[in-house]
């Protein structure tokens, strides 16, 4: 029944999906945190930049961003992100696009977490002489992260599924393989089901684990 799978590297394709997810998650966690810091910070120029970035990027379709990384950044501007093989270039461009896009959502999730930290604790931190960056790093962000593990899990699950858009610029992740198989094989429903199942295998544990983590690290008030 499953002999139509012969000759396709199903695991390899999903492995690439995992890699795309991992690096983009890492990138957007860092960049999203910086954006959130800018948006709550005291410097007007940074606040304006953070707000503009989130507003613009959040409202552009991911496909447009991913296609732009290839057509705009690479083919027009020659940005190859330090790689010389096509597959590596496209992979890195896809990670860049996914990171740029997902960061906006990480930033907003984190900002809602920052709003759960009582202002009094910020005043107390400043009253013992902590600088703004120290206050953010030591007092505000640790508590903000703990309160948004759940929302961040949602962002991560969305990111996992959004990696399929990387197929648009030829990254050989799961969705690209699915398209190829659908063109070549007759088992349309079965192929779709297999890929759907593959994604559930990736996202379901993420949701469960992070849900448990959210309960464990919640700050008692």
């Amino acid at each position, binding site marked *: 029944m499953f002999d139509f799978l012969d000759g396709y590297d199903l695991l390899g394709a999903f492995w690439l999906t995992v890699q795309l997810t991992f690096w983009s998650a890492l990138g957007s966690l860092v960049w999203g945190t910086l954006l959130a810091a800018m948006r709550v910070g*005291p410097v007007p120029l940074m606040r304006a930049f953070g707000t503009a970035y989130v507003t613009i990027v959040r409202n552009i379709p991911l496909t447009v961003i991913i296609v732009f990384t290839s057509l705009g950044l690479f083919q027009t501007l020659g940005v190859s992100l330090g790689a010389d093989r096509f597959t590596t270039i496209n992979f890195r461009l896809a990670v860049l696009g996914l990171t740029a896009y997902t960061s906006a959502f990480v930033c907003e999730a984190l900002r809602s977490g920052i709003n759960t930290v*009582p202002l*009094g*604790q910020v*005043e*107390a*931190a*400043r*009253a*013992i*002489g*902590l*600088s703004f960056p*120290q206050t953010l790093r*030591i*007092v505000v962000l*640790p*508590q903000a992260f*703990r309160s948004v593990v759940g929302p961040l899990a949602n962002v991560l699950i969305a990111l996992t599924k959004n990696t399929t858009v990387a197929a648009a610029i030829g990254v050989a992740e799961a969705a690209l393989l699915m398209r190829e198989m659908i063109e070549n094989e007759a088992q349309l429903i079965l192929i779709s089901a297999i890929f759907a199942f593959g994604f559930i295998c990736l996202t379901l544990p993420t949701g469960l684990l992070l849900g448990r983590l959210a309960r464990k690290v919640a*700050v*008692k*008030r």
Partner: protein
Amino acid sequence: MPVPEGRVTDEGDALVVLRRVDKHFGSLHVLQAVDLTIRRGEVVVVIGPSGSGKSTLCRAINRLETIDGGEIRIDGRPLPAEGKELAGLRADVGMVFQSFNLFAHKTVLENVTLGQVKVRKKDRRTAEERARALLDRVGVAAQADKYPAQLSGGQQQRVAIARALAMDPKVMLFDEPTSALDPEMINEVLEVMQQLAREGMTMVVVTHEMGFARSAADRVVFMADGRIVEETTPEEFFGNPRSARARDFLSKILHH
């Protein structure tokens, strides 16, 4: 003898000097040309009806509230604007809040250690020793490894006092430290403050606790409508208030 530059010369042992301080919240003029001098080792209790500007006054001293006009000097130096210098000044001015404001994700010990390590750059062991000594002094040594939410309000406030003391401040500001406490916990906090006062700490205390004002204050400052109306010894103030505003206030709260 030449006077070092930037020092106040006419205030004797003045530690905190406010001169013609003005502050508005929108159209509300909360501080109106307030003059106040606090000498080293002095305990000044600020009382007055709510909305009189006493909390704002207290918060202005370490610039948690900015002021619109006038000048505040601490130990001879004008209050710096935002930045490193301001952080340095705040470390020298201890602050205790009405709502304790302990760091909820850190243990009691970490709360008292944090500033010493991050601001005073002490090593962790020295900071912890000092923290434990301070926690012992305010009577919560046994709670060192608990989180703030596991403590009673009175215990939390005493930890907050220890946290402020750990910075070795020149002056301690108390912004209604007992107003959020259950009645049976008020005394344990006041006792710690009494002890501090006896040890010679310079203190500015905004409070409704008239008993504390009577017994611990060197001076009572009575505020109403953004102005200092009376400024005198507690005996004078409670025994023989001069202004009608103060007599009216006292008649409303001292009803036995």
